[in-house]
């Protein structure tokens, strides 16, 4: 029973970070209607920013949130403005050009990082990396708990931003109906740029929070992109609440799968859920909650 509870806790904490990754993806998905296949790679870049700050300047990973997030926001803005937006105008046969572009961007990011830092596994060790505390007989990793707390805080902040502020309303309007939003005076081009920046900043936050408890290496982008799209499909495309549910579900499923089936099945579990959701609940959790 203890083992089971321990797995649930671990999965849930991981799920909080996954939710943050998923929200970034789902925002971009909702507003632009494209799937950002460079999502994990952008997260990897943020992790390297954190790594560099820590190993060269001794900055605490949590403090480097203040650097990594704005930096990645800018990177996202540049990508959207100069690489993705020009594609909207181009007359092409395939509308998926933007998706292909994100694949290319992901490759470039991975290789540039590999170029600079080599393929080695790097890790950031802090005083709290291995620290745990106990509630009953269940152990909690400090780093993961703090990460979970920050992830929840950002998720809630994002939620209020989207619902209450003017900019948030514009983003939601663009996601719902682009043409109508233009008619209402929303500068949708600017909105897409900001949204991509925000999505990237959110995934950068998740990456930075992951640094103390995970390895940093250039190829880490791909698997996390895969996780991000599984989360978005699980939660329903474009749904913020869905992304939270999707993230937690994936976190729990991975932990359970890794314990009861074996480590090598960890990735398969996510993909199996993905296929099952496509089969039996196309549209994801959004279908159930209508949010």
């Amino acid at each position, binding site marked *: 029973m203890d083992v089971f509870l321990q797995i649930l806790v671990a999965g849930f904490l991981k799920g909080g970070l996954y939710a943050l990754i998923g929200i970034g993806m789902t925002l971009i998905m909702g507003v632009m209607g494209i799937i950002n296949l460079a999502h994990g790679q952008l997260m990897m870049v943020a992790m390297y920013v954190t790594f560099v700050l820590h190993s060269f300047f001794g900055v605490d990973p949590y403090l480097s949130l203040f650097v990594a997030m704005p930096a990645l926001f800018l990177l996202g803005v540049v990508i959207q403005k100069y690489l993705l937006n020009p594609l909207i105008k181009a007359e092409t046969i395939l509308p998926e050009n933007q998706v292909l572009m994100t694949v290319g961007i992901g490759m470039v990011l991975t290789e540039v990082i590999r170029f600079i830092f080599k393929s080695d596994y790097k890790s950031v060790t802090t005083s709290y990396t291995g620290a745990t505390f106990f509630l009953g007989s269940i152990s909690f990793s400090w780093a993961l708990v703090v990460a979970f707390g920050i992830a929840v805080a950002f998720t809630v902040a994002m939620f209020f931003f989207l619902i209450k502020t003017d900019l948030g309303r514009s983003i939601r309007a663009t996601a719902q109906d682009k043409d109508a939003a233009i008619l209402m005076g929303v500068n949708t081009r600017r909105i897409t740029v900001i949204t991509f920046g925000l999505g990237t900043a959110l995934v950068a936050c998740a990456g930075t929070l992951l640094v103390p408890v995970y390895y940093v290496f250039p190829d880490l982008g791909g698997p996390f992109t895969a996780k991000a799209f*599984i989360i978005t499909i699980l939660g329903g495309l474009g749904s913020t609440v869905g992304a939270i549910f999707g993230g937690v579900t994936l976190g729990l499923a991975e932990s359970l799968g890794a314990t009861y089936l074996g480590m090598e099945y960890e*990735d398969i579990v996510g993909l199996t859920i993905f296929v099952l959701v496509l089969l039996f609940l196309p549209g994801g959790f959004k279908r159930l909650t209508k949010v």
Partner: protein
Amino acid sequence: MKKRLYPLILLAVLAGFPLVVEDNYYQHLMILFLMWVVIGSAWNMIAGYTGQVSFGDAAFFGSGAYAAGLLAHHLHVSAWWGMAIGGLAALAVGFPFGWICFRLRGAYFALATLALNEVLRHGTTIAESFTRGMLGIMIMPTFVSKVPYYYIALGMAVVSVLSVRLLIRSKPGYYFVSIREDQDAAESLGIDTHFYKMLSLAFAAFWTGMAGSLYMNYMGFIDPHVVFSLHDISIMAILVGIVGGVGTVYGPTVGAFIMVAVQEMFRSGFFGLFKFLAETTGSESVRALADVLTKGHVLGFGLLVVLVILVLPNGIVGDWDKIKKKVFRIHSPA
């Protein structure tokens, strides 16, 4: 009339190639090129003509390769039998997949193909007792010379391009394009879109699987990371299609040639040009540059994706008129 001759001239050149160039290295590159013509044409059918972009061509390629490899490994028959069943094995993977996933559209379908490939890769890695997992499957190549492989690959490439041409000028071909342009309109005109999408996928899966079993026979070694690779197979297939020209018969041929050449150029440091320069001039910086170029071949690849999509969204064949106007300043009579 002249335009119709170009493919024939190309075919004659290709048929004579191994007789003139006996260098193993260039024959190897040409075999790869012909293999990519097959895969590119297959991708072009499902993505370029039918509009269902697949990010998981490696799934079919790997199925074909593993069908041939497992047959040779377990039953000890020649892997050439795999050529007979490789395409069918890929069909067997593609059929249930398409049946389920063609309810998805656009980018969601693309993601599903990505997932299919991931599932197969993890599956073959885990099922060690059956597929030997990461150890991979090794067989002895039948021929020492590359020439037989060359002509088999050439035969496959010609038949696949011809079959694209035939299919696209028949009724199903027009249905494919109508599905790409507007699926709902096609449906409302009485086209069974699900059936025709399946047909297109079957075509693509079959040829990609055939290319996979050829790869097994030719290379003699496969493992899950080689044949189910997202970058080296799936993305490469997309690039071959896009660089050459999406939705054109000969686009993938042009694309395959360019992509194989570019890939090899980066890998070999522009065919040893930089190494040669470094040795003749004795300059350290040129040597360093050569080193960087060879190491960065994947980076060059990624940059190429970005550039091609930005500048030539319809590929070289698709944007040929634009290129003629801009680069050669030839205005074709409208």
